[in-house]
């Protein structure tokens, strides 16, 4: 299990990196925690790697204009532990804490997980629930994608060949927003069989809007909009939550694999959504 030979560049700036990508059809190496295993198995055989780890100034996690902005080299572990993230978007911290193990998160980047677009991964799912955006740059300029338009299918994004993800951002959650991230995986640290991220925006006990996003149940993370509609404008009760959770299943299109059948994933979408919404409601009501 040794990787194939490749040409290696370690640019010192974003324009330099973009030029290399364009010139060599290079593959970006950020944290490498998904890419390098694929290369070691020789499933991934990029001919040129553009290592962006030496570009200064990309590892930020900052608050700006009502959003949290996460730079291309911010490590997952930094996002998980960031006081800013914990304060303004605890859902994100919770979702990230389910990614692999801390050693993987030390190195793996938040934006890299987005660019990798594994449909069972936690970060893309959380980005969809949070209606985050992904900023890409190319030699000709910047493009901003919504999370939902960014993920096309398995490991495939809307990114053009000459683009790289430079930043992900999520809006700050209003205080009192109920949130929850619930995951079922075979073992701790494994990819989700099903993961559910939920948000309940509340006003005076009424849910003004709900968001439900799932991982592991389709070729991309999915939003369960019909289920969200069940909750919107209502006072959430256990019954209503159960109703909404039952509707979540319609948004899924899971595949069977060795670990879990499609039927199981479908039903777990319901079970976990119900748990997640219940937890989100408790948080909205309990204030944390």
């Amino acid at each position, binding site marked *: 299990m040794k990787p194939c030979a490749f040409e290696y560049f370690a640019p010192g700036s974003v324009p330099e990196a973009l030029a290399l990508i364009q010139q060599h059809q290079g593959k970006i190496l950020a944290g490498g*925690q998904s890419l390098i295993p694929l290369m070691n198995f020789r499933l991934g055989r990029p001919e040129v790697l553009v*290592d962006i780890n030496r570009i200064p100034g990309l590892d930020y996690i900052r608050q700006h204009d009502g959003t949290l902005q996460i730079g291309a080299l911010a490590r997952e572990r930094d996002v998980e532990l960031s006081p800013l993230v914990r304060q303004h978007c605890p859902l994100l911290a919770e979702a990230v804490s389910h990614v692999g193990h801390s050693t993987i998160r030390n*190195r793996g980047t938040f934006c890299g997980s987005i660019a990798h677009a594994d449909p069972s991964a936690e970060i893309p799912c959380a980005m969809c629930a949070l209606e985050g955006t992904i900023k890409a740059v190319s030699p000709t300029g910047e493009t901003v994608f919504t999370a939902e338009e960014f993920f096309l299918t398995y490991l495939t994004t809307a990114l053009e060949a000459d683009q790289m993800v430079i930043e992900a951002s999520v809006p700050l959650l209003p205080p009192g927003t109920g949130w929850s991230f619930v995951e079922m995986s075979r073992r701790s640290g494994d990819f989700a069989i099903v993961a559910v991220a939920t948000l309940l925006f509340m006003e005076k006990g009424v849910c003004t809007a709900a968001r439900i996003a799932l991982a592991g149940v389709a070729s991309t993370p999915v939003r369960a909009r019909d289920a969200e509609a069940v909750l919107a404008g209502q006072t959430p009760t256990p019954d209503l939550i159960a109703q909404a959770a039952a509707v979540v299943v319609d948004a899924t299109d899971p595949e069977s694999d060795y670990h879990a059948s499609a039927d199981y994933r479908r039903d777990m979408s319901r079970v976990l959504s119900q748990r997640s919404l219940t937890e989100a409601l408790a948080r909205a009501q309990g204030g944390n």
Partner: protein
Amino acid sequence: MADRRLIKLTVNGVACEGYAEPRKLLVDFMRDDLELMGTHVGCEHGVCGACTILFNGKAARSCLMFAVQADGAEIMTIEGLARGNQLHPLQKAFRENHGLQCGFCTPGMLMTSYELLQENPQPTEREVRQSIAGVLCRCTGYKQIVDSVLAAASDPNK
């Protein structure tokens, strides 16, 4: 040999250098070129954790990095834990509590828990378990490893 790069780095406080082609994994570079055999290769896809080292102070899988990426870096390995002939408190605790059997996962366990205790000097049992869950051990059933890390955490000399 095609395209070999000079790599200069500090390992366990000592400046080292060597040449490697870009595809050479950091763990292979450490073992083959720097002759630091204490770090083990268990899966080469980032799951088993036997190859865990500290890379610029952070625990990292050395099978999921290329040697060229370590140019200019500071690395610490299992060989760097003891101070002279004094075992590090973690090493002592592992011995006292039988935190190892075959010793193959031990470099990963030690470096992972070293980082944990740096960040969180008084971890709970659950935090220890979460931390070492990234390192597979087939001998111990983990209990005595968890005991070891908790014992090290309560060692005032750590």
